[in-house]
């Protein structure tokens, strides 16, 4: 029935993909500046490189009468052509994931909670990425974050692109913005393989179930952060404020847990992913 309410919410999965990729949406630095008071960026994996596609650093999140010293990790798509090029549009190399792990280990040592912002088309597909072990870097991240003895709050803010997103999206609380998408493969990639036609991306997007409400139903995320009317790209400030509120609530709950319990709860949550009986 075409009621007024139904018409308002009848957004297709591909509409969400377009919104999620909108360059005017708040990006990692908008979240960092809007959520942290005194952010200090830190660089490098201590092995070969500093990957500009992964932002990392410490900052303080204040609100609700509490103050948290946190490590922030986030994909950096870039806000200008120069930044886009330098950060490969948020497609991270192994060096970026290794930088994230290095600093997460430091955060764990001092019981600093971690907040990650997920917004990437996927891990960088390149010769050097393969040579330096893209597969190993992602695999290690998954194993590493699953066992980390400090709280991890994940916010999927835009594009949650496959393994490149998941590498910093294993956590205790996975938040997802209303118009973000999160998928095992891009709709275009899926359409190219299963429809043999990249133009069938809207069909693929629908079939893959990649929107926040679908993912909540499937148990892949824990909470949806509502966006301001029209979407986060219409009112970045309000969108960042809504995310800050949800992050603060998650931190409040998680810092109370002793590390053993935290890790057990996280494992139980990850362990429950799946649907495997006919």
């Amino acid at each position, binding site marked *: 029935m075409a009621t007024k309410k139904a018409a308002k919410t009848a957004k297709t999965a591909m509409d969400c993909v377009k919104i999620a990729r909108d360059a005017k949406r708040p990006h990692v630095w908008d979240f960092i500046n809007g959520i942290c008071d005194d952010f200090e960026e830190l660089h490098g994996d201590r092995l070969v490189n500093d990957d500009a596609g992964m932002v990392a650093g410490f900052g303080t999140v204040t609100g609700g009468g509490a103050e948290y010293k946190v490590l922030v990790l986030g994909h950096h798509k870039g806000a200008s052509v120069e930044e886009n090029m330098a950060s490969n549009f948020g497609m991270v190399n192994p060096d970026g994931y290794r930088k994230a792990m290095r600093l997460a280990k430091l955060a764990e040592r001092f019981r600093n909670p971690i907040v990650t912002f997920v917004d990437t088309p996927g*891990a960088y*597909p*390149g*010769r050097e*990425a*393969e*040579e*330096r*072990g*893209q*597969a*190993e870097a*992602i*695999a*290690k991240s*998954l*194993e*590493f974050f*699953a*066992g980390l003895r400090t709280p991890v709050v994940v916010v999927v803010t835009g594009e949650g692109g*496959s*393994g490149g997103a*998941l590498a910093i999206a*294993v956590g205790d609380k996975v938040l997802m913005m209303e118009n973000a998408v*999160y*998928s*095992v*493969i891009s709709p275009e990639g*899926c359409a190219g*393989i*299963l*429809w*043999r*036609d990249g133009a*069938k991306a809207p*069909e*693929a997007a629908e*079939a*893959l*179930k*990649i929107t926040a409400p*679908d*993912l909540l139903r*499937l148990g*892949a995320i824990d909470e949806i952060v509502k966006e301001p009317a029209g979407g986060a790209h219409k009112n970045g400030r309000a969108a960042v404020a809504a995310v800050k509120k949800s992050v603060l609530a998650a931190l409040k709950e998680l810092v109370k847990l002793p590390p053993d319990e935290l890790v057990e709860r996280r*494992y139980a949550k*990850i*362990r429950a*992913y*799946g*649907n*495997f*009986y*006919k």
Partner: protein
Amino acid sequence: MGWFEPKAEKPKIPPAKALWAICPKCKSHMDKAVWKKNNCICPKCNYHGRLSARERIAQVADEGTFAEVFREVSYSDHLKFHDATGDYKSKVEATIAKTGENESVVMGTCEIGGHKAMLGVMDFAFMGGSLGSGTGERIARACEQAIAERRPLVIFSASGGARMHEGILSLMQMAKTSAAIGRLKDAGLPYISVLTDPTTGGVSASYAMLGDINVTEPKALIGFAGRRVIENTIHQKLPDDFQSAEYLEKHGFIDKIVERAEMKAFIAKMLG
């Protein structure tokens, strides 16, 4: 001498295709019986071809010791996924009928050279060895049973990556399997990962690359992103041996390339 000798004709591609095997690496043709008799290894270039899970188990587990577990775990078409070529459910059912397997990994307890182990073997013939919920569940359960019974874990991977027909939950199996492997290691048990041809995408980027020992077979394809995807991204010709077992060993991600005939002895030595 020799000017007027009749030249040997180039061998024609034989019409009775079914009787011939073609090596995917060097393209040489041989009698299918020769290929099979040589354990699916190319006599020309030593490429180690694909084996079914059952063939592999027969070559690795001590005779009569393999006891399959978790067969009750299979797939679920929870998204009612269908694409241009049909629906997921019919595709899996056809695969089940063809292979006799009901998931892309076969799991069981066994002994290898007299050492007890938990053995998982992926079958590329099952949906391209893709990682579905059932695959991830079997691997996670295997880790937990291995911890309970103090068994080292050995997994032979062969996969194109995550199973997109299962959407986000297939991606989440990467996290689930990696978390479970982490627990196995924390419990003080070793994990030997054998990356066979091909091991790519979400499987290489999760449990397959997490071995305490990572081994592979000659010329196996191992990588994260597909060659074509990379070429389209960086517009650059890639080396011929890109993403081969030998290339990965050179770059430090593989402990050893082991010939098929030596694999069982190598694993037994690592477990011993």
